[in-house]
């Protein structure tokens, strides 16, 4: 579903990403771990076509992002680290607008159901987003992805700053989404969340994917030890 083939991105002499090869199939949650500047966000931005690769190729659902950017947008949804919606509109109105842009059904009952499915209470969904916590905004983000019927979800540090309960609820939502066949690529610093939510875990450093594991084959202590070892210079 999500595929990076020999993907590189350079800014002048600085290599932000080097020869990344990565594949996230439907129903998988691939967690990219790494320190700041490791290349996680660059990878996400390349999938989103916000930047162009220096070499290599990015494919979504088998379609080249660079060659057919508009077509690939149909398959994906995106939740950034700090999802800022339109504060003067309610959660439901935000969802309606983003869904309209994706040319999907804007039936209010349907959208309300999606917000509820994402864990947002209806009384909150009708209030202005200016009063929302980060967790509530992330839930609207999930509802946007659900309304779009996205085949792939790209997440950039989605749980940073969330309290443990909200973070846990968010993980459950991701698991439910992947259970429905959505491919998820998540950049995160959170080893626990990666091990708990992910089906695959990759560790990046200085633009390179150093190692990757199946989540079920590595314990959290081992993952933590391996991560810390790799982060040493």
């Amino acid at each position, binding site marked *: 579903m999500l595929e990076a083939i020999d993907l590189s991105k350079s800014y002048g002499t600085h290599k932000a990403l080097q020869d990344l090869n990565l594949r996230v199939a439907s129903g998988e949650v691939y967690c990219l771990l790494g320190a700041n500047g490791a290349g996680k966000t660059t990878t996400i931005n390349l999938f989103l076509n916000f930047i162009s690769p220096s070499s290599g190729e990015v494919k979504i659902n088998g379609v080249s992002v660079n060659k057919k950017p508009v077509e690939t947008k149909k398959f994906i949804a*995106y939740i950034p680290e700090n999802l800022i*919606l*339109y504060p003067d*509109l309610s959660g439901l109105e935000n969802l309606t*607008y983003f869904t309209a*842009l994706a*040319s999907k059904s804007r039936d209010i009952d349907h959208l309300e159901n999606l917000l509820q499915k994402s864990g947002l209470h209806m009384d909150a969904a009708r209030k202005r987003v200016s009063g929302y916590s980060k967790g509530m905004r992330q839930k609207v983000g999930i509802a*946007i992805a659900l309304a779009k019927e996205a085949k792939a979800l790209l997440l950039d540090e989605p749980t940073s700053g969330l309290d443990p309960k909200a973070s846990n609820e968010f993980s459950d939502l991701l698991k439910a989404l992947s259970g429905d066949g959505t491919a998820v690529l998540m950049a995160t610093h959170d080893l626990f969340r990666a091990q708990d939510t992910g089906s695959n875990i990759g560790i990046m450093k200085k633009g390179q994917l150093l190692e990757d594991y199946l989540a079920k084959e590595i314990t959290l202590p081992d993952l933590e030890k391996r991560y810390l070892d790799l982060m040493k210079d």
Partner: protein
Amino acid sequence: MIGHVAQHELRRQFRDGRIRTLLIVVTLMLIASLVLSLRDYQLASNQYQKNLSQARKNWESQSTKDPHDAAHDGTYVIKPLYPLAMIDKGIKQFSGQVVHLGAHERKQSTLNEAKDHSGLFRFGELTPSFILTYVIPLLLIFLGYNAFTEEKEKQTIRLLLVQGALLSQLALGKWLALFLQMIGLWCLLFVAAAISSYSVGSEISADVSQWMALGGIYLFYFIIFINLIIWISAKASSSGMSLTVLLTLWIIITLIIPKASTNLAGWSYPFPTLQTFRDNINEDQTNGLNGHNFWNEAAQDFQQKVLDEYGVESIEDLPVAYGGLLLAEGEKYESEIYTKHFDLLQSQYEKQRSIYRWCGLLSPMLPVRFLSMAIARTDYGFLWHFEDEAEKYRVEFNTALNMNIAENAKGVNRYEAGRELWASIPEFDYKWQPPQEILRDHTLEFASVLLWAILSFLLTVFFTRNIQIV
């Protein structure tokens, strides 16, 4: 897609209390300016009708007198007020409203409105054209300066793009939202002004096409600002930067270039002082016919010509009163001198206009103002057209009186005419310059506005396609 974006922008803006307040303030200003203009127009229209009939009444009720004395007393013509002057008063307040038509001398309009006020009148009034030219562009800037920058700062633009929106669609949607807000105010002003102008019941009316033409010019002006706002907002790195750049542009377009071009035009092609202007006319008149001088060379030549025409040897043998013929001929001759000197003034003004036209490439406000004043019949073009027509009438009016002397004063010791003659002189019937003629005279101004609108729109469409997202 574009419609969704526009609808979303409008909803967001109407939810913002600051924007609502701003819109209410500008709407109230617009209504106030319209009410004041309507009151002025009503007063001026009533005054016009009253003065017109009074001037005619005064003329027709003159006592028995020498027709040439009556010509010296003269009559008045009143400058009519076109309904569109409600929107743009142009130079109306600073140019005279009345022209005295007498013998031998072409006079300029007198009794201007500004003289009835204190010097502070020069600070300007709250008029619809002020709101249209200065306030609405400023309002549009405040409504749209952060159209793109806020999306970039809050990163909502990323979500919009991921949802499948194209940058060009977002730009056009935001453009449409600003346009719809502007068109609301535009409609309010022009529809209300047009309807209320008909309610005044003036004999002078402007047809719908004229209202549309004036409104269309301002529509183009606002579109230029909307284009610039969307373009700058898309290119600026922050909302603060966007606002600073747009306010600077507003200052340049509405204040600096227009004022600098006035200085440049006056400096490059100065008008003569009133004293020089009069001296030049006097110099030309010195050796010509003036109707009262029988002895100079020009008068002698004319006398010989008349004698030849009638085939007689002396004035006494003429079947008509020679004095009347000389007065009529002198009037035509003097009028030609005035026409020559007024034409020089007008050609100087045309040269100044060429400076304004070039400066119009730097500021769309200049061609818009010139077009607006021309369509509202409150510009120099109208003033001169009216004064030229009044001068033609003055010559006809004097010729009729002088020829009456020529026909009736032969052999009479003191010829005097009465009310029958005064009533037989036709009234001044001013014919407005046809709209096509005005438009033809302002083709370059119109082309300049069109060029601004097209270029700024292309800037918006092409440059918003490549906004740096990351």
